[in-house]
């Protein structure tokens, strides 16, 4: 069964995935800046951002009301809203959409929580197939060092406290992230991730991303992809 819907829109969807602390957000941010400078119309999409569903998500989190199934479903609801109301129309318009996390996050996290693997894959079948999906591969200890060193407080669900792996929130986070990491690793071939070695320097990772994107987009701008310079630039050059 096909994982996602084929993207027949002119726009391109670039996705970064990986566990917390893998550095993916830094990288997609640098990549989107570069694409903007290259003249692409670039937009950004984050996991968990639709205001209408956010209130329910907050209520569920604050009162620890979620089960693995409702946690999975509320995030899919949010994702569907983002897909229908944001990502799809932008891709139809020809934008390059950079997504920090995508359905793969749910595949990893929900399965670790005990949700059926085939069920959650079916749940996200309406998502559009990314043009490129980067996976930031990092050893657990490296990612944990980056997160636990820098941040003040871990949150209940973020640390997987609902799974009762440990009463200590930091220990729970370690165990939870370890399981998510294993789930990501098992998806690499299934999902056709471009694996980036996230222990390299930020610059080296970014060079590799730009190389992969550059060769995927090919020389010149792909047909239909919206550019901030197209109208003016093309008309100017050919006039």
């Amino acid at each position, binding site marked *: 069964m096909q994982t996602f819907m084929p993207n027949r829109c002119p726009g391109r969807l670039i996705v970064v995935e990986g566990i917390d602390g893998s550095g993916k957000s830094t990288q997609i941010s640098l990549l989107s800046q570069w694409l903007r400078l290259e003249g692409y119309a670039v937009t950004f999409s984050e996991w968990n951002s639709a205001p209408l569903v956010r209130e329910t998500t907050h209520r569920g989190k604050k009162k620890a009301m979620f089960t693995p199934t409702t946690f999975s479903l509320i995030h899919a609801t949010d994702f*569907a809203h983002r897909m229908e109301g944001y990502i799809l129309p932008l891709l139809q318009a020809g934008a390059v959409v950079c997504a920090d996390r995508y359905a793969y996050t749910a595949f990893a996290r929900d399965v670790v929580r005990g949700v059926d693997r085939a069920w959650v894959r079916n749940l996200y079948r309406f998502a559009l197939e990314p043009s490129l999906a980067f996976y930031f591969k990092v050893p657990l200890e490296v990612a944990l060092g980056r997160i636990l060193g820098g941040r003040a407080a871990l949150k209940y669900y973020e640390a997987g406290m609902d799974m009762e792996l440990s009463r200590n929130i930091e220990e729970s986070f370690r165990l939870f992230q370890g399981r998510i990491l294993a789930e990501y690793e098992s998806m690499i071939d299934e999902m056709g991730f471009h694996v980036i070695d996230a222990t390299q320097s930020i610059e080296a990772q970014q060079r590799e991303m730009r190389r992969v994107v550059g060769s995927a987009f090919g020389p010149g701008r792909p047909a239909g992809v919206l550019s901030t310079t197209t109208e003016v630039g093309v008309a100017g050059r050919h006039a």
Partner: protein
Amino acid sequence: MPDDTRRPALSYYRTPLPDVDYSEFQGKLIVIEGPDAVGRSTQVRALKLWLEEQGHAVLDAGMARSALAGKGIKDAKQGNTLGPRTMTLFYTTDFADCLENEIIPALRAGFVVLMDRYIFSIMARAIARGENRSWITGLAGFALVPHAVFYLRADVKDLVKRVVVGRGGFDFWESGLDFGFGPDMYHSFVRYQARLIRVFDQLAVPYGFNVIDASQSADQVLNELKRSISTIFETPADAPATPRKART
């Protein structure tokens, strides 16, 4: 449509819920389904009284009332800004919260759970809006198989009459105006409800609905429901319950 439905009552259709022990359920799960304005709520109220008279503890539940998502759905419907697939998933979240936190504990405690609508309404609304059937069937696969699903069936002209006489006006969502099935509210209502009826009809056989003619008087419908529900309680406790065949 896969034949998920030849499954024993109170098991799952396709996908088990995490951390649920299906062997410890004792109660009965009875579902009243059907399109808008067909008279479900009236029947649920009357059935609840009747079952309680007979000494059963009854939990009645329905859609968009869950502690988790009920309020969010109501707010979202005010603004009409969520797309059809988002609404389907929001309602499914609500359904799952109700299933895990109300229905399942009540069944463990031996209650009769009487549902005004079930996952089939979510499926029918989605399919009527053009949603992929295999997607929604898979999504719904965690629902519990009821002991009986009574489908109150009426034609669109009956529904129109009920709306006009009983409610005195048409409703935005019941008319499918979010999707726009027709050029105006009345025509959209007629086309949307006709589609819903067609989809319910299609779900009736694979999911073993017990079809009841809702164009009869409310008393006649109630008597028919009571007769069928009585047979559920006659089943010896240790015999596996089997899904009921559609009567059409």
